[in-house]
Structures are given as C-alpha cells and as structure tokens.
C-alpha cells in the first residue's frame, strides 16, 4: 500500500523531453511576442478550454454542483438537523470532533453529499489535466514564451527550498500547486466548477475585493502586495483597482506563477510576480502600503500563519494595512457541531491539510501578537461575511 506521505515525483520528470521548438514558438520569441494558444477564443476575461467536449463536461459538473447546493446539500442539512435533535442537540450546539464525524458520516444522504462533492471534483480535475496534457507541447511553449514578456515581471527561484507544508494535493488537485506543470491552468478552469455558478469573469475575486475602497480610504496606495497569489486573478483585480500602484504578488509554486504571469501579460496589466515563501520574503522593511492575501492562510500551518503576520508587519510601511481574506477572517460560522464537521470534511477529503489548525486559529490575536492594531470589524471582503479582521501598522 502506498504511503500517502510518500513524495510523488512531479510530472516534470516525464515532461522533460528536449523536443525542438515549434515554428510558431520560434517566431513568437524572435519577434518578442507572446505565443497565445487560444484555439476556441475568449468570452470576456475567460479563455475557453481547447475542446468543446471538455468544456461541456465541465459545464455539466458546474451545473451538478448548482443542483447539489439547491437539492442534495439542502437534504443533507435537514438530515443533519434531524440527527442532532434525535441525539439531544440543538443545531447551534458544539460537540467533540470525533463524535460529530461519527454522527454525520453515518447518514446516507450526508454521505452522498460528501461523495458527490468529492467525485465531481476528482472528475473535473482529471478532465482538465488530461486536456492540457494531450496538447502539452503547445501549452509549455505558451508558458515559456510569456516568461520574458511584460508588462510586469516574473522572478522564478529554481533554488527555492519548497517546504513540505506546501507540497500537498490541496483541493485534491492533481500534483497540488507545485507538482504539475499545468497547475495554473488546472486551478483556473477548476474554479468554474468549485465556486457556485462558475468564476468565468474572475467574478469571485472581483466580489471579494469589495472591502478595499473602505479599507484604504484616505490612504496613499503606492505599493501593494498579494501573498500566495495562485493563478493571479486577485492580483489582476488589485491592479485594476489601484492602477497607479506598483503591484506585487508572490507564491511558493512556480507553475502557478508562470500561469499567473502569462495571463496578466495577455491582459496587459503590470504585476510583478515573485517565487518565494510569503512568510519569509525578500522584500525590504517598510515597503508596502497594503499587504493582502486571499484564500491563503488556510493553506498554511498555524505557526506559519503567525510568521506571515509578522512578515507582513515587517514589510508594511508605518500606517500600512494588512488585510487577510479567508474562510474564518470574518463572522463565518465556527463553534457548532455542523461547522466542525464541515471543517473536517474540507480537511480530510478536500485535502486541506492545515484546515483544522486554521479552524482553531485566532487570527486577530496572531495579528496583535505581530504588532498590529487590530480591528475585528473591518470592512467585509468575502461575500460570506459581514466583517473582516484588519490590521494597521502603527504610524
């Protein structure tokens, strides 16, 4: 039996065939242009995947998740309430994690809800990955052609010692963020299934940026950093929101940064991407007016989240703002048996390996310990909360 902690060789090994470059690639590089592989065009911000059949399969799973939310998940919720009452609990009561897991996983509807959530995600990732692997040479050339293009820049660090905590297949994405050459493409398209009703126009990132105008009201915004930028969608939103600011974005994962940079170049936005550990960055002291992250902290162990807050404090200018956006950065529910089960479900079967640490983490305290003046009622970013924790570096 395979030990799941055994390190898997990344797909790089099989991808390293030193094939000659195509004429299209040579021409693009000679003329200093991006080789944009876009066989089926774009709709607004969304670049369509290269096959109608794959697109339709993904469309099915997007719709299936919509149905799940309306029907199956609702039934599962009703079953959960029924189970709680049958066992002498109110829906708002808490219970030990192992009891909550045992109680809820015993129910066939709740089990099916978990099953469908997991399997649709597995199928979706596999379909996207296969689509890019089938046409790998062209997409590798597309990525390579973008590396030297601007506006903006891409600094990859081949010598970076990527820590184990970042090497898991989070979201059960094949290879995670670091182990598949097409991780950026896979994550980008997968969001249309994972997020309700799709994310075709980066609509999630746009809607979750709603708190910035209030957070930065009356403040100079000359330099902005997004930590853990993944596919770069939030960094692009930040650049559009603060067009005169110098926008930086970092991530530990090279494949994600390559995709992020390529897409940002395509959209002619100037964002500087850097491969590094966000909690141990190469930026100077007192450098940024705004440091933010979106869906990052739940991907890190609690001690790294604390280190991230300390690093953010170091690189922010006096008076600068630290604005982390994630699943428990506002008033999202915690402290009930059902919330605990959902956290466990994400941890165990979405392979969000640091989720339970995040569930227990007091983010506001971590920020206070780092030196920030903290407002737990800061402007809401994500749409599932009415407030968000925000930290100010004393002026």
């Amino acid at each position, binding site marked *: 039996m*395979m030990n*799941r902690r*055994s390190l*898997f*060789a*990344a797909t*790089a090994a099989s991808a390293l065939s*030193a*094939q*000659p*470059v195509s004429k299209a690639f040579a021409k693009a*590089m*000679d003329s200093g242009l991006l080789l944009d592989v876009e*066989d*089926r*065009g774009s*709709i607004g911000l969304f670049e369509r995947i290269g*096959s*109608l059949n794959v697109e*339709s*399969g993904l469309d*099915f799973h997007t*719709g*299936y998740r*919509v*149905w799940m939310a309306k*029907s*199956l998940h*609702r*039934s599962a919720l009703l*079953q959960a309430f029924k189970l709680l009452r049958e066992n002498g609990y109110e829906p708002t009561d808490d219970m030990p994690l192992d009891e909550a897991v045992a109680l809820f996983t015993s129910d*066939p*509807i709740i*089990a099916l809800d978990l*099953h*469908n959530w*997991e*399997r*649709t995600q*597995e199928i979706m990732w596999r379909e996207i990955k296969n689509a890019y692997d089938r046409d790998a040479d062209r997409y*590798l*050339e597309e990525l*390579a052609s973008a590396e*030297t293009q601007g506006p903006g820049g891409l600094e*990859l660090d*081949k010598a970076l010692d990527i820590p184990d905590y970042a*090497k*898991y*297949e989070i979201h*059960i994405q094949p*290879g*995670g963020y*670091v*182990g*598949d*050459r097409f991780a950026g493409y896979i994550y980008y398209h997968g969001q249309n299934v994972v997020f309700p009703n799709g994310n075709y126009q980066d609509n999630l990132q746009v809607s979750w940026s709603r708190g910035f105008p209030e957070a930065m009201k009356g403040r100079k915004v000359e330099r902005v950093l997004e930590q853990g930028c993944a596919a770069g969608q939030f960094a692009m939103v930040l650049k559009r929101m603060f067009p005169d600011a110098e926008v930086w974005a970092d991530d530990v994962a*090279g494949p994600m*940064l390559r995709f992020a940079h390529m897409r940002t170049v395509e959209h002619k936005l100037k964002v500087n991407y850097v*491969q590094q550990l966000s909690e141990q960055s190469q930026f100077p002291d007192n450098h940024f007016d705004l440091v933010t992250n979106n869906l990052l902290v739940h991907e890190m162990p609690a001690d790294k989240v604390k280190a991230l807050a300390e690093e953010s404090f170091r690189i922010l200018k006096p008076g600068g703002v630290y604005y982390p956006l994630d699943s428990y950065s506002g008033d999202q529910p915690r402290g009930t048996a059902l919330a605990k089960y959902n956290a466990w479900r994400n941890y165990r*079967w979405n392979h969000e390996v640091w989720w339970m640490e995040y569930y227990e983490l007091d983010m506001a305290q971590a920020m206070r310990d780092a030196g920030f003046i903290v407002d737990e009622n800061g402007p809401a970013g994500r749409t599932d909360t009415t407030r968000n924790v925000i930290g100010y570096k004393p002026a």
Partner: protein
Amino acid sequence: MAGSAQKADTHTTDFFKSDTDRSVLLQDLMTDNIVTAIINLGAEQWTTRRRLMVIEQLLSEHGSITTEMIEAYIPSPEVTAAWEQERDAFITRIYDVLARRGDVPVDAKLDY
C-alpha cells in the same frame, strides 16, 4: 531565442499524493463506484446533447457547418442562459431522486 532547455523547465517539484483515489465514501466500494459512474454517464450525455445544440444553432444560422465551426462556436448570452436552464433541468430530472430523504424501512408496519 529561448531553446528547448527553457521549454523543458516546468518549475515543478515532488509532492505528497492524496489518498482520494482509494477512498470509500458510501456504504461500500461498489455503491461508491456505481454512483460515480452514474455521474459520469450524465456528463457524457450532457456533452453529446450540448454538441448537438451547437450543431443545431450553427445549422440554423449558416445552413452548413464544419467541425472547426462547431469547436469555435461561441453562444450568445441569451443562448448561454437558455442552455444553462436546460442543463439545470436535465440534471434535476436525473439526479433529484438522490436527494430523497426516506426513513420508512421495508419491514415497517402500515401506520394508518
């Protein structure tokens, strides 16, 4: 000009593989697999149906079509919305039964 060395460098690293491919999330492995197969069948059926809708749309607009036209076709926002409605109805017709909450066992006595 960048050469094959640059092309070959994918900036990937080793990773910890998840165990989801060995997971049993329903009462037994076969039930788990069969339900997954049903989901796959729905995706295949929808894929065929959507391709047919593209073909019909193109035929009504152009009279004759090619494979390239089918692949490149971009539906209008109105057509997209109509197809989404059709997709959601298609899924509901097939799968809504999975959300049925039953609690009367086969050997339950009549309770009138």
